[in-house]
């Protein structure tokens, strides 16, 4: 009979290791199952010498295993040693395929047909999923790699890239510059990849830069005697072929873990791929006895996972242990001056703030850990109109005053929330908010709130409804009460448009007014058979009122210039609004008149329209501040880039050679400080912030994950080593080379010598928010070619220039 363990830990990542170590320390019978041949596979696969961060630094470490930031090698060595010291019962190469049974009697089946019995199961398998391997005996040989760190490090080699996805294509193209590359595709064409990548690989193949084997698959890899190369046997349509190669790079994708976890019986709250499994405060999933920790539980950081590993064992043992974040939370709640325990306060918060009542307590705890609790004095300003902050506030007690444009103030009471407009639109604050009497607030950062919105549909629904209501109230009918507006608001629709999609077309029947919730739109008129933009409308404003007020046909086409959400109010409801409010009509007519004039004057210049069209196509529709270069003044001196590099640790955050040009306007590759920054979307340490002045910047706590670099559609973020200072000016003057040339993107990688101490971090334009004189690039331009403008300003200047 197979031995039954008290605890089986699946996944020897930081969380799993920590849990097994705790179990071992407590003398509990346990087993640690790891599918790969090494512990901490993700860290193991890091580039050599990569720096491992220990974020968040305020959180204490609670684990039997040591962990401090350091190089990958140091961290792994410590864990290996700890593994031996604690006599952890670990099984490597044990891939779990199924788990069934109930608490006290779980049956874990492995891929090698073995079974493990356990009373409790702790899942710490992370979110990476399983990388697909070649499935050959030589899978783990030194010739086979499953990722590519730096293609420029490899030169003059014969390389076989296996796979047909984006990763494989990108690797193959990057490597082909300096190597002889053969790409191996299982099928007879490339279909799985992005269109751009497919075009590129096809071009490269037809140009002979890359050779390709279609309908082929490697079936064997054997080293040759010299040792630096191997011979790969492939099955192709023409039969078996042997190729010599210096390395094989397999990019076959990964199998995401959700399906596996769901097969264990664990439920997820939504279909959203980013949603997390339902867990109790003690990390127990919907299957009793099955615990989930680490990234899969929504804790992507190493230290959190290790803490959970420790705590989960104690929970299983029924020990009354407080989570590691207890002290931090207690500290946060100190301001409230209550004597209740942390758990009671958290429960009280969920009870009082209706919005959060449906949230999983564990998730709520995590949310509050990242949030701030305020107790402002009466009359204190919480935020001002036009501030660029975008955190979300919930009222725990007391009330706040929201000052409207008209000067009146709306009171918001306990359980209510505010700040959702900026949260959702990414725009500046639309009103000033003052604290009322006995006010207690919870401030939730935008990132945490977005995470919550994605995983808890009810929160999203409540927020959306409130947003619509408030938007309509704020824009059209401040005089009306919420109750009066409710029927109109509930009939309003939230529409989402992709960039370039038409919201309505010229000549359509006017059926609704659109309030732009996020993104921005361009107003276009057909002119001599060509659609030319006449205006640009940003979030918080509305379009379509002309059709409703004036005629019944749309006078212009409105297209989303970026991904845009609008709230549409249909004709019937709009008429009701008008009827209920006498001032509204006059106000709308004034707006309409000025727009008509604008449109008239602007459409008379095709050139202005052309420039506007170009700028909108460059993504300036979602920009708040953009660097433009006047090509008639630019002398290619690169002083802007040098200035940027010199004021920002040696790496230029703008690429003057990049970007597009139209007429005399050049939009170089440089941050546009988007309204709703793409880069902010997925930043694990929340290092990307928006400064009060609107500057989107990356803080020092960047962990170098590269998510933002990939998320930015404008290619303005790059990963770079912080560089040491150049020579002094005078030395440079006399002997040269003092002012280092701004490094190109490829050169930054691997060029800066001491890679063991530093890690590459994301760098981007911060608009020189810490310099007194403003953006260095603009100040350093000797001819006045460079300027930074807000979209409204450049629309204005373009009109002035061409009219």
């Amino acid at each position, binding site marked *: 009979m197979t031995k039954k363990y008290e605890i089986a830990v699946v996944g020897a990542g930081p969380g799993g290791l920590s849990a097994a170590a705790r179990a071992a320390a407590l003398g509990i019978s346990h087993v640690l199952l790891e599918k790969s041949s090494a512990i901490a596979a993700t860290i193991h696969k890091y580039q050599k010498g990569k720096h491992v961060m220990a974020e968040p630094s305020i959180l204490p470490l609670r684990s039997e295993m040591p962990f401090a930031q350091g190089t990958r090698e140091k961290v792994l060595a410590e864990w290996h040693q700890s593994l031996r010291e604690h006599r952890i019962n670990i099984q490597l190469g044990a891939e779990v395929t199924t788990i069934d049974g109930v608490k006290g009697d779980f049956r874990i089946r492995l891929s090698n047909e073995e079974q493990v019995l356990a009373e409790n199961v702790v899942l710490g398998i992370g979110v990476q999923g399983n990388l697909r391997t070649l499935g050959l005996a030589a899978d783990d040989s030194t010739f086979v790699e499953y990722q590519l760190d730096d293609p420029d490090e490899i030169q003059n080699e*014969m390389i076989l890239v296996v796979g047909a996805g984006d990763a494989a294509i990108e690797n193959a193209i990057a490597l082909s*510059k300096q190597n002889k590359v053969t790409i191996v595709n299982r099928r007879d064409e490339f279909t799985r990849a992005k269109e751009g990548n497919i075009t590129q690989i096809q071009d490269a193949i037809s140009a002979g*830069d890359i050779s390709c084997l279609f309908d082929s698959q490697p079936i064997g890899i054997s080293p040759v005697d010299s040792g630096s190369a191997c011979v790969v046997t492939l099955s192709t349509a023409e039969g078996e072929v042997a190729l010599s190669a210096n390395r094989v790079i397999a990019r076959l994708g990964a199998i995401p873990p959700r399906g596996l976890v769901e097969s264990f019986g664990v439920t997820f709250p939504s279909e959203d791929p980013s949603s997390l499994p339902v867990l109790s405060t003690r990390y127990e999933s919907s299957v009793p006895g099955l615990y989930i920790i680490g990234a899969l539980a929504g804790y992507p950081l190493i230290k959190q996972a290790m803490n959970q590993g420790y705590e989960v064992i104690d929970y299983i043992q029924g020990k009354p242990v407080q989570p590691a974040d207890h002290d931090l939370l207690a500290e946060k709640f100190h301001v409230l001056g209550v004597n209740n325990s942390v758990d009671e306060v958290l429960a009280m918060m969920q009870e009082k703030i209706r919005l959060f009542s449906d949230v999983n307590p564990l998730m709520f705890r995590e949310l509050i850990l990242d949030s701030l609790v305020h107790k402002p004095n009466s009359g204190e300003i919480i935020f001002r109109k036009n501030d660029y902050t975008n955190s979300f506030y919930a009222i725990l007690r007391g009330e706040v005053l929201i000052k409207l444009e008209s000067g009146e103030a709306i009171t918001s009471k306990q359980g209510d929330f505010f700040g959702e407009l900026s949260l959702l639109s990414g725009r500046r604050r639309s009103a000033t908010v003052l604290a009322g009497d006995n006010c207690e607030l919870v401030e939730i950062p935008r990132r945490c709130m977005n995470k919550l919105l994605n995983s808890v549909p009810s929160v999203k629904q409540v927020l959306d409804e409130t947003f619509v209501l408030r938007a309509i109230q704020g824009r059209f009918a401040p005089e009306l009460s919420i109750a009066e507006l409710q029927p109109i608001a509930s009939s309003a629709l939230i529409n989402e448009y992709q960039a370039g999609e038409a919201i309505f077309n010229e000549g359509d029947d006017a059926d609704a007014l659109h309030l732009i919730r996020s993104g921005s739109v361009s107003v276009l008129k057909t002119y001599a058979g060509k659609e030319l933009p006449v205006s640009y409308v940003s979030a918080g404003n509305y379009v379509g009122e002309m059709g409703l007020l004036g005629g019944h046909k749309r006078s212009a086409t409105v297209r989303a210039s970026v991904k845009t959400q609008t709230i549409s109010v249909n004709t019937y409801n709009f008429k009701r609004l008008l009827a209920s409010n006498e001032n509204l009509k006059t106000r709308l007519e004034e707006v309409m008149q000025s727009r008509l004039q604008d449109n008239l004057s602007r459409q008379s210049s095709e050139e202005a329209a052309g420039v506007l069209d170009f700028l909108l196509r460059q993504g300036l529709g979602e920009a708040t501040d953009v660097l433009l270069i006047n090509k008639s003044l630019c002398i290619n001196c690169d002083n802007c880039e040098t200035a940027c590099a010199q004021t920002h640790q040696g790496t230029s955050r703008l690429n003057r050679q990049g970007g597009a040009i139209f007429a005399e306007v050049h939009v170089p590759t440089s941050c546009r400080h988007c309204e709703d920054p793409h880069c902010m979307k997925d930043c694990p340490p929340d290092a990307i912030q928006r400064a009060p002045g609107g500057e989107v910047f990356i803080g020092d706590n960047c962990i170098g994950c590269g998510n933002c670099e990939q998320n930015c559609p404008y290619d303005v973020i790059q990963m770079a080593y912080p560089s040491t200072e150049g020579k002094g000016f005078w030395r440079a003057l006399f002997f040269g080379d003092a002012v280092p040339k701004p490094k190109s993107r490829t050169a930054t990688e691997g060029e800066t010598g001491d890679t063991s101490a530093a890690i590459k971090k994301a760098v981007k334009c911060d608009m020189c928010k810490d310099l007194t004189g403003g953006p260095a690039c603009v100040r350093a331009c000797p001819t006045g070619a460079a300027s930074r403008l807000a979209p409204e300003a450049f629309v204005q200047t373009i009109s002035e220039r061409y009219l």
Partner: protein
Amino acid sequence: MRLLIKTKLKNEESFQERTFLGALLRLGRASDQDIVIEDEAVPLSCCEFSLDAGELRLSVLGKPLVFLNNKKTLGARLRPGDKINAGSCQVTVLEPVDGYDAALAVFTERRGRKTTELQDSLRESLATTGVSKRGLSWLLVAGILLTCLLAPLLVVLEPELREPIRAAVMIPDDGVWDSGPLHNAHRTIGDNCSACHETPFVKVQNNTCLNCHQQITHHASMFRFPDVGLGEARCATCHVEHNNPSALINKDSRGCTNCHGDVATFAETKTTLAPVSDFEFSHPEFKVSLQVYDQKFAGWNTQRVSLSETNKQDSSQLKFPHDVHLNPEGIEGRDARVVMGCADCHQVEMGGASYEPVRMEKDCSGCHQLTFDTDFPKRQLPHGEANLLVPILEEFYARQTLVSQDLEPGRPTFPAQRPGKVTRMEAALREQALVMAKRKARSTAEMIFEETTCAICHDVTRSTTDTGQPSWTVLPVKLVATWMPKSIFDHKPHADQSCGDCHQAKASAVATDILMPTLASCQSCHGSEHSRNKVISECIDCHRFHNPNQGLMRGREFSSLPTVLNGAKP
């Protein structure tokens, strides 16, 4: 020719064989070559193999580094076993194979870049030609420092090197610092800068000037004005050198008027000079230096009298009516009436600047003869010896009465004398003759002194001696030699003018009139530097800085004196 070519890449297992047919086997990086070497170091066309009389021959194109058996080659005949290296490629000549003219083995170390990167071949800036802005800057700066600073500095600082460097034609010396030519007067100094510029960073010292200009005099009395050492002013303040066009003397009046404009403050009580800041508008009236006879001391004093004074009088003690002499109808001369002009008495001095003093013997005696006896018209009395006149007359008449035959009629007759016998007179007769002569002499003297000859021009006083004899004294006369000694006036440039334009002699009836022109008279033509229609007149046009009366400058440095003489001064 028919060649067997075996090629192999580093990574490849075995040689690939092919046959080449053609006259010329080309090796290079370009695709159009027969053997393509993918290596950036190999030129597009590198070398060629050909068959020459049955032997394989290598010729290298251009100047790539091609080595034959490790020696650089430009072409050679090849034998089996020869190794040719070009870049990463090695060609070995193999032993001939049957059916082929020759066999080559081509081995390439590594693969080069796939495509030619045109972009990389751009010479992006001038820097690639070896000319950099920094390099050029250094070159220019170093060149200029060497030629224009170091070499001249050696001349200045190393006396031993001075002459050799100056003598060398090719080496620049301190001549490059010369900012302009020297004045003609100083040309004898030549290129020897240190002759005047003795110490670096110290202005040219006055003593250096005085080494040559030994006789130059001071401006003002060193005793009365010990601190009018002119302070900051140096010789070079007024004597400016190295200018082009050269003007050695700075004529700018401001150098003078800086002090003289407010001379009262400057010199306190030590001077009676009037302030002057400008000739046209603030110049005081001229003063003339008159000679006044002091009875008490029987001498002449100089008296400064402004021409603006109304009762000014010349006191030469001479009687001279200019109007009579200059009467256009003439004046009674010795023989006839003559019309006189100024120049009859006032003769221009050599050089023409001024006039010789008027002298009685030279200028008056033509008409004014000192005869005393119409019977003896040729006899004249001496001029200026009034005391001797009476004795001379007595002697003259005594001789007449005692000896001469031609005594006047009515004289006492003496006994006739016998020939050969000394004429002897009786005592009484002698006495009588002498009395007669004395009487005659006295009457003549009385006439001369009091009515004719002397009295025409001179004032004569008559007195009686103790013996009761009358005696006459002629008052002393002194004509002014230099009316305005403080200035220099050159008549020559004014020669075109008539004398009467400035000197109103025709209207002068008495000698006490002062005929010097006034300030206004000069100002009718001369003005200040700002004048539009007048001759611009600077101070030094009339006044000399170096005052001949003030002793030599040499050996007495301006600034060193006051402390010696005037130690009490703060």
